[in-house]
């Protein structure tokens, strides 16, 4: 909008004045808007935006928190991919975890929400499936550690021994072969909640009239209903759940540590975040840890963009 005043006749003066008034009014509103937004913006910039920028910078340096950061170029990244075998192990573990647990928890949480939506006593069922994720991973891993305990007292070992399926207890959380499956099972059970609740709510949003209209248009089975009516209407929730699932799957850390310890036997439960944590807060090599962080961000961001493109509505 131009603010230059070019008066041609007295008749135009009134609208001009009105526009100017509107402009200052808009400015006032914008200023008030920034004022209201400023607490969020300040905290967001200080504790989210600056850390991200700094992290990217540090990933090109050697920094141990005692001496000032020294620029080393890309060497952190080259060490990360070419020399750090443990990182590659953690990469492998995290990808195995993400590929299995991510989609599985995503689909299961949708399926559960879809089924529960058709049942009576929705509230009781939703509570039962949401409770595992509101209770803390740490707190419940203690319960799970009892189930998968390596001695004869462990619930699973005990049952298997009683049924005569095994002759001696299996060391579930110290045997490198069983660590990952145990982590995946526990995480699946623990991490469905948010997605599940979002999907359940999304399903409440689909009005029953649409199903009636669909029935007239020749949709006959529940699965056709799901595919042609429910899923397209739930794209926002599906996208939200997918972003959530990606971030959660690649961020797996506390459950893995609670189950297998740190470092885990033979690094079988070592994840990317566990590796980052090791370098950042145990070895204090923050430059190297930042390189890990930046790599992880690139992966989650890239996958997030792909998912957004796949699931975004047309108006984007």
């Amino acid at each position, binding site marked *: 909008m131009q603010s230059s005043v070019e008066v041609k006749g007295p008749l135009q003066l009134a609208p001009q004045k009105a526009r100017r008034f509107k402009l200052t009014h808009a400015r006032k509103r914008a200023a008030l808007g920034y004022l209201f937004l400023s607490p969020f913006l300040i905290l967001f910039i200080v504790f989210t935006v600056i850390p991200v920028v700094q992290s990217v910078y540090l990933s090109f340096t050697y920094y141990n928190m005692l001496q000032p950061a020294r620029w080393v170029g890309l060497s952190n990244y080259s060490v990360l991919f070419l020399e750090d075998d443990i990182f590659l192990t953690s990469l492998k573990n995290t990808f195995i975890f993400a590929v299995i647990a991510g989609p599985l928890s995503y689909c299961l949480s949708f399926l559960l929400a879809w089924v529960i939506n058709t049942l009576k006593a929705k509230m009781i069922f939703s509570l039962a499936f949401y409770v595992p994720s509101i*209770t803390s991973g740490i707190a419940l891993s203690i319960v799970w550690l009892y189930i998968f305990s390596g001695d004869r007292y462990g619930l699973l070992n005990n049952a298997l021994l009683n049924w005569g399926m095994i002759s001696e207890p299996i060391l579930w959380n110290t045997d490198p072969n069983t660590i990952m499956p145990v982590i995946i099972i526990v995480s699946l059970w623990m991490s469905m909640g948010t997605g599940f609740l979002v999907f359940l709510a999304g399903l409440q949003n689909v009005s029953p009239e649409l199903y009636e209209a669909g029935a007239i248009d020749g949709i006959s089975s529940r699965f056709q209903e799901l595919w042609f009516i429910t899923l397209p209407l739930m794209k926002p929730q599906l996208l939200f759940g997918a972003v959530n699932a990606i971030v959660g799957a690649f961020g797996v850390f506390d459950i893995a540590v609670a189950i297998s310890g740190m470092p885990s036997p033979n690094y079988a439960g070592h994840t990317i975040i566990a590796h980052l944590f090791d370098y950042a807060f145990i070895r204090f090599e923050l430059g190297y840890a930042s390189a890990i962080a930046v790599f992880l961000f690139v992966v989650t961001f890239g996958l997030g963009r792909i998912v957004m493109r796949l699931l975004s509505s047309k108006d984007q």
Partner: protein
Amino acid sequence: MSFTKFITRFNRGLLYAFMIALVGFTSLPIVYMISTAFKPLDELFLYPPRFFVQKPTLRSFFDLLTATDSSVVPFSRYIFNSLFVSVAVVLSSLVVCCLGAYVLSKFKPPGAGFIFSVILSALMFSPQVTQIPTYMIVSSLGLVNTYWALILPKIAVAFNIFLMKQFFDQIPDALIEAAHIDGASDWKIFWRVIMAVSKPAWATLIIFSFIGNWNDFFSALVFTTSESMKTLPLAIQTLAGGPGVVARTGALAAGTFLMTLPPILIFLLFQKLIMNTMVHSGIKS
């Protein structure tokens, strides 16, 4: 006709049976946790372990209080830390994120679109990724080992402002216009109109924020080193001493039980509102 009806009935019955069995499995650890918290000592070390408690006792809870007596800090300190930090974060995040979302949704000042897209990409950040530089900022501000370190970084959360913005988008502009005509200031409109209309939304925010902060042990682990600043999840992990430790099983079970109680209570109080609000939380609704 009656045969097909019988088939559908039968299928539904099967579905219910399956779902109930699944619920039975998912609630198994919680039931076990509750039952273990009330077990007397002899039942805790019983072989084979019994799932349900036979002679319930509060002994474990006293054990918890006395066992932690020997440590520098009493257990109640951890409970206080967790409660104080969670409540402070939830309340300040509520006000800050709702105000921000109100602006992004209704004021739309220049740059609002850009700010919102930055927030959306921040949503894709694993929270741990920013912990290192956040630690540096917190330490350069001299906040390490203070409550500020546990509270300030978690107020402006992308998830929260996103949720609230989606919800505020649903409020018709006419409602705000009407309030303007009645002579209400924007500040008043925010509290009296926006917040009043979106009760379910901020109830959801309270639940998510409370549960997330209550269960978070990463911040306390990273931003604090002193024993007296530890929060409950971290203290319980210390009590456990890693996998496979059997000592202090009773105290541990009681601690775990106490730990999971507040989130369950919060969810029970607000679950109906969650069901109504999560609808609008999808990206680009």
